[in-house]
């Protein structure tokens, strides 16, 4: 196995939220105890429903926000505010909404050159221009697109531009924050193919955040299933999909739409709502919605255990 490019150990991000004038601020535990490794060329998927901390994880890895606990290392270097500037060019992000992620007032040329202007201030204008055109071709856009404005492009093309911008600094890691969920299905596959090609050619590591399990199953090497800011199941994607052991994972997978009607297993319908991340839950956070719940689940939280294919559950599915 090659060297790890990202290692995260017990990563946490808690927010203080003021509730009222007199009451003490509450803590929102957006992310707790997340650990993972990422090698060059590997794709790690993070799945889970809305509000489970996927995007928070993306923000931590891309150094938009600082973790409040745990340790994050990129290329062996600890990620702290002092190292942000030097590590930034190794991690870049592609956002979900291709309509919101490009500044409508800037030309594509300006958008693509922006990362270089900030992180390589001594680079000449011609060199920047050459690199930007090169990356534009790399993501499959034509040279005449170079001087246009973002509103002249379709969603898929915009997403290609976002990817080109993320590649400008030759990063080793791309964080893909639901890069295809805002696109048409036909465009989704184009973008996925592009991402696969780029990964093969550039040896990129992907942190792929998604809630589309059918994509994750084909596209990713490993998968992290999150629930309420915590990892509930983690392992190689083949194993997790073939043999989901945490009830939540099982429910998630059973909810994936199937191409052939009536061919699948019975869909597991979860009852109840996601608890508020502000509440301090003593037991397993999934206990209120779980069909295998026992008294033990309500009393104490199961820790993630089980090696390569780990789960946080007392009564795993077999």
């Amino acid at each position, binding site marked *: 196995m090659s060297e790890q490019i990202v290692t995260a150990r017990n990563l946490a991000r808690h927010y203080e939220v003021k509730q009222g004038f007199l009451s003490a601020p509450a803590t929102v535990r957006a992310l707790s105890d997340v650990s993972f490794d990422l090698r060059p060329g590997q794709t790690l998927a993070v799945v889970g429903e809305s509000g489970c901390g996927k995007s928070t994880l993306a923000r931590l890895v891309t150094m938009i926000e600082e973790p409040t606990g745990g340790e994050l290392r990129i290329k062996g270097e600890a990620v702290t505010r002092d190292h942000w500037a030097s590590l930034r060019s190794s991690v870049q*992000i592609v956002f979900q909404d291709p309509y919101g992620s490009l500044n409508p007032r800037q030309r594509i040329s300006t958008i693509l050159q922006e990362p270089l202007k900030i992180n390589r201030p001594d680079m000449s204008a011609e060199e920047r221009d050459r690199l930007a055109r090169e990356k534009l071709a790399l993501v499959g856009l034509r040279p005449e697109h170079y001087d246009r404005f973002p509103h002249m492009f379709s969603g898929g093309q915009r997403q290609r531009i976002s990817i080109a911008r993320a590649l400008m600094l030759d990063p080793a890691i791309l964080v893909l924050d639901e890069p295809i969920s805002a696109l048409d299905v036909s465009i989704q596959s184009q973008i996925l193919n592009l991402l696969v090609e780029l990964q093969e050619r550039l040896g990129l590591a992907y942190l792929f955040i998604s809630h589309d399990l059918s994509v994750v199953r084909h596209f990713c090497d490993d998968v992290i299933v999150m629930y309420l800011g915590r990892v509930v199941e983690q392992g190689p994607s083949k194993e997790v999909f073939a043999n989901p052991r945490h009830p939540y994972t099982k429910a998630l997978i059973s909810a994936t739409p199937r191409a052939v009607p009536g061919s699948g297993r019975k869909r597991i319908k979860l009852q109840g709502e996601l608890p508020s991340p502000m509440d301090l839950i003593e037991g397993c956070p999934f206990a209120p919605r779980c069909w295998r719940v026992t008294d033990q689940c309500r009393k104490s939280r199961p820790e993630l255990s089980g090696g390569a294919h780990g789960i946080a559950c007392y009564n795993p599915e077999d």
Partner: protein
Amino acid sequence: MTDKERFVPDEGLAPASTVLPAAGELDEFTKPPRSQWANVWDQFKTHKGALWGGILFLLIVVTVFLGPYVWTIDPTHIDIRARNQGPSLAHPFGTDQLGRDMLARMMAGGRTSVSVGIAAMLLALGLGSLIGVMAGFFKRLDGPLMRLTDLFLALPLLPLLLVMMMLFREPLNATFGPEQGIFILIVCAIGITSWMPTARIVRGDVLALKEREFVLAARSMGTTNTKMILRHILPNVLSPIMVSATLGIATAIITESALSFLGLGFPPDFPTWGRLLFDATDYLQQYPERVFWPGMAISLTVLSVNYLGDGLRDALDPRIRGR
């Protein structure tokens, strides 16, 4: 490793090319881009109202600033035998109750009014944008700055202006001379009391922009706050600022007129459009045209500036420009 097969073949879009085209080949494809300002001008031309507004505003500015070199009658020259005349060749706009030429007075008054309008607008705009962007962008400043805005909104304008005149008129007159001094005082007075709406609008827009993903993307590549504001925030709040600017000129001219009308503005012998209007109201019954000229000038200026701003806002927005 999972098998990363292709899902469906790429269609329509060019595939990620395996061989990058050489630099020379790239140059063939791309014409030099048109300059941004050529595009802006193209769009501006299509907005007929804005074009006419711009022409009219330019005409007014040229007339009031260059007119006195052509029409050389002194606006303060009193010719008591020629008072209260109607329009004639010697006095196209007639004369006032002291026999001063109305055309010359209109031009002199316009110079002051337009200058005050533009200067006060710029001051209010600068203050409003600065405070709005600061409040929207820096969470910590939001509370204090918005309370300051509320405070200014709650201040009664006229007593404040009275106090300002009383406190600062003499020292300013002593330093800059009576005309310059009162000009600075009035511009400051109008500017300082009219930046609040701009600040509020800008703050709201900045708050919304800050959550947009391109701002996050810029943050993830290490953009500093200054660069972020200058390159990503300000260009995107240009539209509301432009609207505020055009409305600002209009309100500034009207406020100046109101101040002169109340006798708080420029000295009585110093013509402005507001002062001319004030002087003319006494003779409204006998010589209604004397109210008409300055009133018309104020209305036309305000109207033309509003149209101009409307067109500029459209022309500066690449999304609208593309259509």
